[in-house]
């Protein structure tokens, strides 16, 4: 049998098993795992323990970043730090709608930017920002759309952008030079989104908003909120300023030190083990996805299916690729979540490289579009989470329709970044 027929059959089996698993309402993580195992069997590799185990460890370091960063955010939330900040901003700026919207955007961008996960934004600051937005006279569907879109952008925003990191790793490209190409579109698109959907509304009802927001403990203050961030930034600074006279700390341990600082400064007594357990429980779908994606990619590479997708992608007409990005990115995200980066992102970046585009800016462009798929079935994890956290009870389709205008804008921004990546190369600073 020639290689094309062989891998096409395996791919067919994998797709079929994935669809079947989804029909039986099995979670995306386990559906991917089932597809991987089916692919391995169809390829004649049986159930190879070494390959499965090796695939499962692919994203260990990224999972550690996830866990430690979310632990930090959860401790800050449990200690009342987040509520303190939201109330503080609301009290000070409720009369200036524009400034308030800008600050809320910032609050939504930070958790996801630091952790690389939109779900962390939704869980940490999403709920509280939603309360404020509601009292600014913004409908629940618009509130949900704002939180979802900005949470997605926060995940794509630097320093941690998993799509960019995973794709870059897949093509042996350093994750360097991405800061500005990711930051600028994410901040611009986030601001456009919040002003587009949130500018019209009533005057902020501060009394009611403050009543509904959780009360921080009396002893909470700005110092206690900011110091843990300072600790984190200090380690980043130390590593960059004195890289050769200080030990390598690594992002997970930096987040862990920040979490411990927040824990020690908390005015209320916190149960570390309980928060850790809640964090792991909350992250299970994400770390489960990354582990399953690792196994899936390993099997796809082993059987040659990854090569089939790669060679197909790089031999497609370029105009077709450009025209299809707005569809290909969100759909691949909806099906594979972060797995879209190594499966679709890697061959695309190889193609961009070959046709002389700037791979960093182009990949940043792709990374901005990808998170939009998180609202689409079959997974729709972040979309569903947002709706739940915001307390939006109307139809899911209506929520999706509210997202359309900012989503189209983001698709345009991302596609333009890809097509004109060469001209935007200066953003990388390399």
């Amino acid at each position, binding site marked *: 049998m020639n290689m094309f027929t062989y891998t096409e059959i395996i791919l067919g089996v994998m797709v079929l098993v994935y669809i079947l698993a989804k029909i039986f309402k099995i979670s995306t993580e386990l559906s991917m795992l089932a597809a991987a195992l089916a692919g391995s069997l169809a390829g004649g590799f049986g159930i190879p323990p070494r390959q499965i185990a*090796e695939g499962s460890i692919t994203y260990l370091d990224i999972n550690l970043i996830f866990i430690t960063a979310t632990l930090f955010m959860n401790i800050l939330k449990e200690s009342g730090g987040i509520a303190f900040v939201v109330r503080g901003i609301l009290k000070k700026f409720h009369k200036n709608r524009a400034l308030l919207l800008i600050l809320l955007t910032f609050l939504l961008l930070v958790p996801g930017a630091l952790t690389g996960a939109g779900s962390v934004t939704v869980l940490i600051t999403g709920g509280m920002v939603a309360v404020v937005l509601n009292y600014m006279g913004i409908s629940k569907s618009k509130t949900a759309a704002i939180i979802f879109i900005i949470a997605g952008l926060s995940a794509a925003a630097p320093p941690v952008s998993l799509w960019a990191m995973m794709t870059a790793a897949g093509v042996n490209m350093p994750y360097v030079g991405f800061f500005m190409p990711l930051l600028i579109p994410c901040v611009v698109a986030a601001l456009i989104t919040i002003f587009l959907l949130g500018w019209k509304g009533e005057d902020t009802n501060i009394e009611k908003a403050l009543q509904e927001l959780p009360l921080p403990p009396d002893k909470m203050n700005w110092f206690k909120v900011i110091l843990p961030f300072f600790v984190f930034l200090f380690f980043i600074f130390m590593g960059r300023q004195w890289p050769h006279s200080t030990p390598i700390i690594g992002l997970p341990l930096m987040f862990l030190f920040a979490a411990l600082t927040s824990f020690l400064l908390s005015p209320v007594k916190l149960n570390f*083990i309980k928060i850790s357990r809640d964090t792991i429980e909350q992250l299970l779908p994400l770390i489960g996805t990354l582990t399953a994606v690792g196994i899936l990619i390993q099997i796809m590479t082993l059987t040659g299916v990854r090569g089939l997708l790669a060679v197909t992608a790089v031999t497609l007409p370029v105009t077709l690729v450009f025209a299809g990005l707005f569809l290909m990115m969100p759909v691949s995200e909806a099906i594979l979540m972060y797995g879209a980066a190594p499966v679709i992102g890697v061959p695309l970046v190889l193609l961009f490289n070959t046709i002389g585009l700037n791979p960093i800016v182009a990949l940043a462009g792709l990374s901005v579009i990808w998170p939009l798929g998180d609202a689409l079935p079959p997974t729709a994890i972040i979309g569903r989470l947002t709706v739940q956290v915001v307390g939006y009870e109307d139809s899911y389709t209506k929520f999706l329709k509210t997202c359309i205008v900012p989503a189209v804008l983001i698709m345009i921004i991302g596609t333009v970044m890809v097509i004109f990546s060469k001209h935007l190369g200066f953003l990388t600073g390399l």
Partner: protein
Amino acid sequence: MDFLTTIVTILYYLFIAYIVFILVLNLIKSKTWEKEILYIIVLIPFLLRLFRLK
């Protein structure tokens, strides 16, 4: 310097052990079969590193 580097690495292994502990606790308390499978799959990479196999 070597001493500090060793300490950092040990801290990483200790944290991995802590996550294994939490994952096992959560596995014991989990109620659905899907979560149980997922916890076991997620445990594999942490155990591989903890036992210095991969």
